[in-house]
């Protein structure tokens, strides 16, 4: 029966090409716009580390003095050197890493390349195992290397391609800011989106090219790059002082179960109380322990414009659908005579309904294909934009499937009312009037 209905649908659609084209165009435009914006939203609000995000937490404490206490309810968004080091050394989590960003000048020795700047991440040893960073060659460093401020680096595969033509460079020396550091590892392909562990860079930044122990970066007095938030007499400079009342480091922990998270939060409160007793903190304990996705939500990393575009596109899709409902109604009602004949020959209402829905489905599928082409065009246009996330706007298989399901679902929904109305005709009346 389905094949027959399909044949009927195609014949009917061919009979009135302009009306068919109009319906397909309306669905295609609506679907194209919705899918373009939805894909951008999907890419931007995605989970940067799907397997690990539920066990990663971002502890926040409030080390400020009591000035302006009433005006800010949230604790600070980063940690100071003292707190970061205290929390790191307490080792109360399964894994923990303290980190910050920087920019280093690299002086290539082995090629004719000019010196260039590269983004760097100064971190402690757990950075790699905690975030599940893949290695192409070599490995990260150990806690002992952190303690001894070992002169070593890990580089990204992109930097490795640039400097060593993609060959295993572990054991070679890398000169940066006038110091030679031994390369111990080369990362595999790694670009978490958003750049969750330090949102001060820009939300959708590329991963850094150079990674080195935080202690080494401090020994070499490398310049800090990122946000510095001070209170009291905290100073500013290219490299915040370790004793300064400024926050400029990010601290992440891995807690494998919710129970451990609850215990860790307790620990943060105790820590704040202890620091207050010591006179370092002045406010009552105010801590947060958000997990990775909670942190991204709180930081509102998805640009407001992107959400607005999704709203708009779906409003537009609704207009297109209502339009299609109207056109289908006109189309089905025009065929009252033909449907009357089928009814008179014994077809049940259900059969007519099925036939008309097949026709609606065919329109939906064609609209879906058109919409997909428009979405490709739309995403291409998005990629031409200057926004930092622009390059990420690509359609993945999941979204491809969603496109067709949305188009099909929308057109079937649009076909329901017209098909039902068309089935209500009285066969006798239709036969007589013709």
């Amino acid at each position, binding site marked *: 029966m389905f094949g027959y209905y399909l044949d009927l649908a195609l014949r009917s659609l061919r009979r009135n090409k302009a*009306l068919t084209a*109009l319906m397909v*165009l*309306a669905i295609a*435009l*609506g679907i194209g*716009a919705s899918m373009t914006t939805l894909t951008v939203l999907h890419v931007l609000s995605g989970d940067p580390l799907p397997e690990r995000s539920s066990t990663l937490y971002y502890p926040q404490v409030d080390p400020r003095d009591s*000035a*302006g206490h009433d*005006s800010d309810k949230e604790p600070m968004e980063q940690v100071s050197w003292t707190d970061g080091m205290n929390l790191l050394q307490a080792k109360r989590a399964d894994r923990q890493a303290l980190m910050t960003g920087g920019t280093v*000048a690299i002086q290539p020795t082995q090629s004719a390349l000019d010196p260039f*700047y590269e983004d760097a991440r100064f971190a402690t040893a757990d950075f790699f195992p905690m975030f599940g960073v893949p290695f192409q060659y070599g490995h990260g460093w150990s806690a002992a290397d952190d303690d001894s401020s070992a002169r070593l680096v890990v580089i990204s595969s992109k930097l490795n391609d640039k400097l060593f033509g993609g060959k295993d460079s572990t054991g070679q020396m890398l000169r940066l800011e006038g110091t030679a550091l031994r390369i111990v590892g080369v990362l595999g392909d790694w670009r978490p989106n958003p750049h969750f562990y330090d949102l001060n860079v820009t939300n959708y930044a590329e991963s850094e090219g150079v990674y080195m122990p935080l202690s080494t970066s401090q020994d070499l007095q490398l310049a800090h790059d990122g946000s510095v938030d001070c*209170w*009291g*007499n905290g*100073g*500013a*400079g*290219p490299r915040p002082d370790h004793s300064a009342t400024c926050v400029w480091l990010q601290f992440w922990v891995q807690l494998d179960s919710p129970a451990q998270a609850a215990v860790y939060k307790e620990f943060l409160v105790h820590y704040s109380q202890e620091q207050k007793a010591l006179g370092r903190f002045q406010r009552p304990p105010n801590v947060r322990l958000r997990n990775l996705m909670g942190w991204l939500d709180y930081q509102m990393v998805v640009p*407001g*414009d992107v*959400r*607005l*575009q999704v*709203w*708009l*596109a779906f*409003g*537009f899709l*609704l*207009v*297109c659908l*209502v*339009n299609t*409902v*109207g*056109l289908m*109604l*006109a*189309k089905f*009602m*025009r065929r009252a005579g033909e449907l009357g004949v089928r009814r008179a020959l014994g077809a049940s209402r259900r059969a007519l309904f099925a036939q008309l829905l097949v026709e609606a489905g065919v329109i939906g599928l064609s609209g879906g294909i058109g919409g997909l082409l428009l979405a490709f065009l739309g995403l291409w246009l998005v990629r031409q*934009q*200057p*926004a930092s996330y622009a390059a990420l706007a690509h359609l993945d298989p999941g979204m491809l499937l969603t496109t067709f399901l949305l188009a099909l679902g929308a057109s079937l929904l649009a076909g329901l*009312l017209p098909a039902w*109305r068309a089935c209500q005709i009285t066969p006798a009346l239709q036969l007589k009037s013709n």
Partner: protein
Amino acid sequence: MQIRPVLSALRKHRVATVLIAMEIALACAVLCNACFLIANRVQQIRIHSGVDERALAAIKLTGFDEKDGVDLNARVLSGLATIPGMRSVSVINAVPFGGSPNNAGITTDAAGKQFAGVVNFYTGGPGSFTALGLRLIAGRAPQDDDYQPVVHFVPDDALVWVSQSLAEHAWPGVDPIGKEFWVGRPHFRVAGVVANLARPSPGEGGPSTIEWSVFVPSQPGAHFAGTYLLRASPEELSRVLRDARAAIAKIAPDAVLETATSQSVASLRETFFQQDRTMAGILLGVIAAMLLVTALGIVGLASFWVQQRRRQIGIRRALGATRGDILGYFQTENFLIVTFGIVLGMLLAFALNLLLMTHYELPRLPLYYLPIGALILWGLGQLAVLGPALRAAAVPPVVATRSV
């Protein structure tokens, strides 16, 4: 034209009528709100920076040692001043639209209890106040001994010039001259008010805080070096900037020129608002596509009705109705349906606006958008129905005598 027969005919086509009215209503809601969003973006793009944008450019150097800052300032100031056409070179920390703001929360009492918002501090070396072209509306201009050395990110105790918008926010209704404020320990006293002065990244703290800026006359030094303000006549600015960027390579071979920020203020502004312009473009595109789809929908349904009523039209024509009568009938019908839609659409537009207001920093939809939206949709409806209605008017009276 009598409305009663049109209405009773519409009652026979209730579903289709409701559908078109709904489509118009949705289109009206989206149209009004999208236009409002565009107007908001355009307003943001057009903000007053308060400086002579067409005559100013910035040069930003990084990568030099902090201890070389004093020497670098001296070399750059004297080196760039010799470029023909250069009116002035001065040290500054940032320019409007150039990013890198120097934000800090201020309090209007020494104890730090009366929080007055997060404001941006522009530190400017000698000559920068005049070079920026700030318009003084109260107080006096900075004098030579007002320029204090920078201790942390600003001088510790200094006279400052605030924008009118900040003055009205921090000291509403009183004369701001002589008023004091604090950032923790550092203390400032207002010596003058300028008409406008936008932040380096206007809009980051919300639309009402765009001009919350303070100008602090500061002595260039180790903590205050690397960014320079160039002034030239608007016609010569692009050449002067090109020459200056070329000269930097010789004047300061140890420093790196940040190309993205070493631009004229006009082009920094252009880049800064690119995203907003794109968004306005997308909104315009959506509006155009939606109006097109709506119009095509009306054409489709009206054509169907014309075809369905060929016989009746023929009878009316045979009974003496003119072509104009038939044309008028379809136009009236369309006008009525669109009017239903618009009435519903105005309510929807307000509902959508309320929804958007809860998610975005948007003001309430001004009432005058509604009549404008209504006029556009009425026009669109009449235009769309014109084709089918003309076809209806062309139906010859003889159709009445044929039994289809």
